[in-house]
């Protein structure tokens, strides 16, 4: 063995010598996503881990997502990915989301829950569109759920129904959630008149602690009995909320919404990003998924606003239709968009808390929709 042979062997064992065009494109894609997350601040808490996972999974020969084989242990990300594959991480994220969510506005104005239901039209309309484009029922259900604007739910469904699409669906779902302030306002303005946008809603009533404590328990029992397949998502969401509202479990609530949520977010983001390898990601289906995701989001927003208009008429003009768009989940971004668009029309308008009702109802609505899709196609 001479020095030149060692040098050549070394060169041949490096990633530089083994990288494929597909992997190069995926690395560049991950750079773009990192740029969007860090510089443009598009959902950076999730997009940074996702983009970095994508980067790691496309390093040639590193085998971070390799399954154990012939007595060899698998790659680091393969083991972390089991939390996604087994449906563990999304419900844990929901636990944290529940601990951070105030259902007070929804309890104060129960009618607003219907706006959260209406916005789920986007999920099913896109499901139909995906079927028409030739996707299987499982793939279509996973693509449609992007319209729920609820990352953990989308990943939960996809990991169970179409795990090979996790990468494109995660990227589409979180990108569009970050783009809510750009996607929603034109649709909201196109579907409402200036007079409707100017409607000032009545002040919400104060909600008692008792109501806030009973609410998560009742919702868990009701939804879980109706749709057992949604029990893990709704159950964890409501457990988190109960921890927040009891007043005697502050430590658990804080852990759920901070440390636990952050840890799970890192694992979830990195491993979901790592599923986006060149073979699965660089296909025409990815483009279709990204296009369908945008349609899902837009239809969800539109159906929420249109149902808001119906409720506006039905209540004699007491409901501002703009809060309907918040029914697509994306908490609290979608509610902020309702506030912003409302305030553009009428600077004295404060819709934020009114929009939080449909917003959190959208989380429940998309979990119910997810349970239904799992029931049909799981």
């Amino acid at each position, binding site marked *: 063995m001479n020095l030149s042979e060692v040098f050549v062997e070394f060169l041949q064992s490096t990633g530089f010598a083994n990288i494929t065009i597909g992997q190069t494109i995926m690395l560049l894609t991950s750079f773009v996503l990192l740029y969007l997350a860090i510089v443009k601040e598009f959902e950076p808490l999730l997009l940074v881990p996702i983009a970095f996972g994508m980067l790691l999974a496309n390093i040639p020969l590193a085998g971070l997502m390799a399954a154990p084989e012939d007595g060899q242990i698998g790659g680091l990300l393969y083991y972390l990915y089991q939390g996604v594959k087994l449906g563990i991480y999304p419900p844990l994220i929901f636990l944290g989301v529940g601990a951070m969510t*105030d259902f*007070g*506005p*929804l*309890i104060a104005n*129960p*009618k607003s*829950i*219907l706006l*959260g*239901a*209406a916005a*789920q*039209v986007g999920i*099913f*309309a896109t*499901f*139909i569109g995906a*079927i*028409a484009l030739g996707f*299987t*029922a*499982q793939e*279509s259900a996973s693509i449609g759920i992007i319209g729920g604007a609820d990352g953990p739910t989308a990943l939960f469904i996809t990991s169970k129904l179409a795990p090979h699409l996790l990468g494109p669906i995660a990227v589409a779902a979180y990108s569009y959630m970050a783009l809510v302030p750009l996607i929603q306002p034109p649709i909201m303005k196109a579907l409402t008149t200036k007079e409707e946008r100017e409607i000032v809603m009545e*002040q*919400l009533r*104060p909600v*008692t602690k*008792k*109501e806030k404590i*009973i*609410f998560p328990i*009742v*919702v868990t029992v*009701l*939804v879980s009995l*109706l*749709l057992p397949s949604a029990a893990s998502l709704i159950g964890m969401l409501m457990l988190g909320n109960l921890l927040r509202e009891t007043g005697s479990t502050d430590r658990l609530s804080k852990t759920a919404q901070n440390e636990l949520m952050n840890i799970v977010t890192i694992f979830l983001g990195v491993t979901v990003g790592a599923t986006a390898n060149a073979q699965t990601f660089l296909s025409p289906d990815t483009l279709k998924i990204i296009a369908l995701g945008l349609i899902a989001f837009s239809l969800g927003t539109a159906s929420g606003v249109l149902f808001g208009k119906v409720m506006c008429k039905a209540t004699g003009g007491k409901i501002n239709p703009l809060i309907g768009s918040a029914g697509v989940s994306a908490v609290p971004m979608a509610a902020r968009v309702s*506030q912003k668009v409302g*305030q553009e029309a009428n600077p004295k308008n*404060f819709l*934020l*808390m009114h929009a*939080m009702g449909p917003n959190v*109802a959208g989380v*429940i*609505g998309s979990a*119910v*929709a997810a349970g*239904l*899709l799992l029931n*049909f*196609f*799981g």
Partner: protein
Amino acid sequence: MITEISFIDSLIVTVFSMLVVFTSLLVIAVIINWIRLLSTEDKKKVALNVQPEVTVTRNEQVEVVQTTDNSQELVAVIAAAIAANLGVNTQDINIRTIRRVSQSLTPWSVTNRQEQLYGKL
């Protein structure tokens, strides 16, 4: 497991699913109303038990704050706070009534308005 479904089947799934989503959320809305009624009844009971007011007399200041409970400590704290704020002794002020004022704005609304205001500064 069903993998291939027709376009018509997907329409049926959609209509059925939306009905279930609406119905289940509607039921939740109805239950929320029941919880509210339950809570309102409790409030009425509490209201019946409310003791009428602590009165204190006055020299020059009349403060109207308030309470629905009879905590003497709370009264003492309020009296001390008013006295400290006015820079006088507690004996020199007369507090006639202390009533709890219902909060018309939620802390969320207050925070939001403050953010709006600060955003304009």
